[in-house]
C-alpha cells in the first residue's frame, strides 16, 4: 500500500499535511508520533472512516477511493482500534460477522454453527483461543483485543492497521501480541503498527515512519536507527521528561489518606474491589499500576465519595469518612482528577470561569447567601488562568473548546486551588502531548512538594516510575503488592499486573 499527499483538515487544525508513505507485503511498518501528531486521523482515512481533503491511496499499484468503511474492508484493509470497536452486549461471533458480506457468508439468515466453525479454525491457526458464544463484556481486555484482531482476519484483511495496540495490555500480553503479528507478517500480510512508544517500535517493526504535527518527518529502517534518533524526530528536540520525583522521606510524616479493608461493587453490581489497604502520607505520591478495568475507577470513586463502599474504612488525616458522598469528600480536602476529563471533570458547555468554581461556588467570596458574584468568579478565573498557564481565549470560553491539555490544567487549577490534603489523579496525562504531559506532571510534583498526599492511578508504567515514591499494583480488585520505587523493577510489576506474582 502506498499513500501520496494525504491532507485532512478539521475546523482550526490541519491534522494531516501531505502525508506520503508505503508499506510492503510481509512488512511491519511502524507509524510513530506523539499524541496529536495525526496518526489516528491517518488511520481513519486509510480505513475509509474519514475522507481526505487531498491525496491518493494505492493498493498494489492501483489507485483506490474509499467512500465508506465498507470500501476499505472490501479492499482488504482491516483496523484494530485503540478503543475497541466491539458491541459489548453482543457475542464474539456476532461481532465478527457484523457487516460482513462475502460469498460464503451473505445469506439473510444467520447460521451460528457455520460461523462458530470458521472462528474456531482462525483462532487455532493464529493461536488466539476465544469462545465464539461469549459476550464481549465478559472478556478481559486482552481477550477483547484478540476478538478485534480476529475480526479483521475473518474479513481476510491483507493490510492490518493496529492503533496503539499495547496501551491496555500487560508487558507479557504485549509480547504475545508481537508473536502473533510476526506470524501474520510471515504470511505476507502488511502490518501498520501505530504507536508513540519508542521501545516497542524498536522491538517489532521493520521500518519506522515518524509523524510530527501532521507531517511526515521521515522513514527509516529500524536496523539503521536508534531510540534516541527516533525520539528526536518525533518531538523535534531531545526528549527527556524533565519532571521526576525526588525521594521523599516518609518517616515521621503524617498520614494523609488511609484505606482499611475497603471493598466496593462495580457498575454492574459485581464486587470490584476487595479488602484494599493503602496509606498515603503527606507529600508522598503513591502510584497505582494495573491494567484498566482491574478496579482503578472503583478505587478512585470510593475514596472521592462518588461510589459507596460495601466494607472497610477510609480515613482522611486520621479521621474516618462516612463515604458515598462527594460533598463530604470535597469538604474533607480530597481533590480528584478523574480519567473522564470532559464528561465528569468539567461541565463541558459551561465556561472556563464557571468550571473553575465548580466546587468553590458554595463558599465566600464566590457566593454569599445563595447568590453568586460574577465579578469574583471572573477575577478568580483570570488569576488561575495566569497562575496555571491555561490557554483559553477568555474566561467565558466554553470549556469543551479547549485542548485536552488545557482542560486538564483547568481541572488541576480548580482542584489544587482548593488547598487539598489528598489528591486522587486518574490517568492524568493520557492523550496529552509531550509539553502538556510535562506541565501536568510538574503540577502534580509541586502539589506533592507542598504536602499534598497524592494517589496517582495510571496505566503508564513509565509515568508511575517517574513520579511515584511507592508503587501499588492493582489486579482483579486487590492490591497484589506495594513496593518502594527504588526497589521496584518493571518486569516484576508487569507480572504482578497480570496476577502472576
Amino acid at each position, binding site marked *: 500500500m502506498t499513500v501520496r499527499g494525504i491532507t485532512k483538515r478539521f475546523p482550526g487544525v490541519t491534522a494531516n499535511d501531505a502525508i506520503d508513505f508505503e508499506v510492503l507485503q510481509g512488512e511491519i511498518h511502524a507509524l510513530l508520533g506523539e499524541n496529536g501528531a495525526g496518526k489516528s486521523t491517518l488511520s481513519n482515512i486509510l480505513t475509509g472512516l474519514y475522507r481526505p481533503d487531498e491525496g491518493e491511496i494505492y493498493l498494489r499499484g492501483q489507485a483506490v477511493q474509499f467512500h465508506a468503511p*465498507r470500501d476499505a474492508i472490501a479492499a482488504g484493509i482491516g483496523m484494530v482500534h485503540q478503543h475497541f470497536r466491539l458491541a459489548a452486549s453482543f457475542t464474539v461471533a456476532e461481532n465478527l460477522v*457484523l*457487516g460482513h458480506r462475502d460469498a460464503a457468508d451473505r445469506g439473510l439468515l444467520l447460521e451460528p454453527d457455520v460461523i462458530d466453525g470458521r472462528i474456531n479454525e482462525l483462532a487455532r491457526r493464529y493461536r488466539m483461543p476465544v469462545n465464539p458464544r461469549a459476550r464481549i463484556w465478559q472478556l478481559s481486555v486482552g481477550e477483547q483485543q484478540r476478538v478485534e484482531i480476529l475480526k479483521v482476519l475473518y474479513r481476510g484483511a491483507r493490510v492490518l492497521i493496529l492503533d496503539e495496540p499495547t496501551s491496555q495490555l500487560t508487558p507479557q500480553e504485549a509480547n504475545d501480541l508481537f508473536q502473533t503479528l510476526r506470524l501474520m507478517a510471515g504470511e505476507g500480510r502488511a502490518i501498520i503498527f501505530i504507536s508513540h512508544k519508542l521501545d516497542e517500535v524498536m522491538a517489532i517493526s521493520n521500518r519506522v515512519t515518524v509523524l510530527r504535527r501532521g507531517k511526515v518527518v521521515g522513514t527509516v529502517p529500524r536496523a539503521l536507527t536508534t531510540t534516541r534518533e527516533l525520539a528526536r524526530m518525533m518531538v523535534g528536540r531531545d526528549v527527556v521528561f524533565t519532571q521526576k520525583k525526588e525521594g521523599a522521606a516518609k518517616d515521621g510524616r503524617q498520614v494523609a489518606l488511609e484505606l482499611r479493608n475497603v471493598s466496593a461493587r462495580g457498575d454492574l453490581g459485581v464486587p470490584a474491589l476487595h479488602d484494599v489497604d493503602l496509606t498515603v502520607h503527606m507529600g508522598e505520591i503513591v502510584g497505582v499500576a494495573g491494567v484498566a478495568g482491574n478496579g482503578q475507577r472503583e478505587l478512585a470513586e470510593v475514596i472521592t465519595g462518588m461510589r459507596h463502599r460495601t466494607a472497610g474504612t477510609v480515613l482522611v488525616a486520621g479521621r474516618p469518612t462516612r463515604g458515598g458522598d462527594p460533598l463530604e469528600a470535597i469538604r474533607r480536602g480530597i481533590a480528584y482528577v478523574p480519567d473522564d476529563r470532559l464528561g465528569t471533570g468539567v461541565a463541558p458547555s459551561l465556561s472556563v470561569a464557571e468550571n473553575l468554581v465548580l466546587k468553590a461556588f458554595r463558599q465566600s467570596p464566590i457566593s454569599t447567601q445563595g447568590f453568586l458574584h460574577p465579578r469574583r468568579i471572573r477575577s478568580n478565573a483570570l488569576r488561575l488562568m495566569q497562575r496555571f498557564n491555561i490557554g483559553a481565549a477568555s474566561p467565558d470560553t466554553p470549556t469543551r473548546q479547549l485542548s485536552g491539555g488545557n482542560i486538564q490544567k483547568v481541572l488541576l487549577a480548580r482542584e489544587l486551588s482548593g488547598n487539598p490534603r489528598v489528591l486522587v489523579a486518574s490517568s492524568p496525562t493520557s492523550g496529552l502531548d509531550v509539553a502538556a504531559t510535562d506541565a501536568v506532571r510538574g503540577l502534580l510534583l509541586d502539589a506533592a512538594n507542598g504536602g499534598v498526599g497524592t494517589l496517582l492511578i495510571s496505566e503508564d508504567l513509565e509515568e508511575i516510575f517517574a513520579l511515584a515514591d511507592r508503587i501499588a499494583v492493582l489486579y482483579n480488585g486487590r492490591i497484589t503488592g506495594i513496593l518502594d520505587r527504588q526497589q521496584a523493577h518493571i518486569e516484576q510489576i508487569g507480572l504482578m499486573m497480570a496476577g502472576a506474582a
Partner: protein
Amino acid sequence: MINDSLLVVIVASAIAYGTPLLFAALGELLAERSGVLNLGVEGMMLIGAVSGFWAVQTIGGPSWASLLMAVIVAALAAAATSLIHAVLTISLRASQIVSGLALTIFAGASGLSSYIGHVADLGGKPARHEFAAINVLGLKDVPVLGPILLHQNALTYVSWVLVALTLVYLYRTRPGLHLRAVGESPATADAMGVNVTAYRYIHVLIGGALAGIGGAFFSLAITPGWIDGMTSGAGWIAIALVIFAFWRPELALVGAYLFGAFSSLAFTLQARQVHLPPEVFASLPYLMTVVVLVLVSTGWAGKRLGAPASLGVPYVREER
C-alpha cells in the same frame, strides 16, 4: 355460559384494545433499536387514524379492498410524518426529545390530523367499512379460547404475525444483527461497513408506518369514525410499553394486552353496573402506565436492561 364470564370478556377485549398499542409499540421498538427515540408516536397515530378513515370513505371497491387500501394509506401517511423526525434527528442532529414533541404538536390533536379531518369534513360520519371480528372456522363459541383467540379482527391476526416476524428479524437475520449493532454501538457498526444512517432512516420510517396502522385501528375498528384526538394518549402509552418490554417484541405483546385490559375495563365494568365515577376508570391506563414504569425503572431492572446503549445519541462520524 363461561364465554360471558367477566374474565373471558376482559381478556378478549383487552386483545382488541391492545392491538393498536402493539402496532405502535412494535414500531417504536424498531426505531429505538436503531438508536432513535421518537416521541411523536401519538401524532403519527392520529395521522394514521385520520388518513385511514379518509381513505375508507373515499376509496371504493369491495369492503376488504377498501380497508386494505385504508391501512396502506394510513401507514404511508404516518411514515411520511416520521420522515420529518428522521431528517431532523439523523441528518440534522436535532434533539430527539424536542423533535418528537414537535412531531406530536404538529401532527396531533388540534394539529395537522385535526386540520385534515376538518378540511375533509370527516367528523361525525359513520364508517363505510370497518374491521369486524372474524369468526375463524366458525369456532367463536368454543369455550374460553373462542372469544379470545378465534374471534378477533384481521389486523389483530396480522399483529401476531408481525410479532413473530420481528422476533426472527431481530435475532436470526443479518439485517437484524446490523440493526441491533447500530443502536448499541454505531461507531462499531460504521467501522464494520454498516450504513448507520440508512438503518436509522429505514427503521424510523417503519416505526411511523406501524404507528399509522395502530392509529387506523382506532378509526376503523375500535370506534369507527373520526374524532379529533381520538387516540387520547395511546401513542404515549406505546412509548412506555417499549420500556416496559425491555425492547423485546414478545414482551411488548404481553404489555400491550395488559394495557388493553386497563383501557377496556372502563367499558366492561360499567356495562356490568359497577358504580364508580367514570373518571376513575378512564384514568386507569394513565395511572397504571406511571405505576408500571416506576416498577420497571427501579430494582434490578433499573439498569435499563435491554435499552439500546446509544438510544437518543446522534451519530456523527467526522467530529473531533
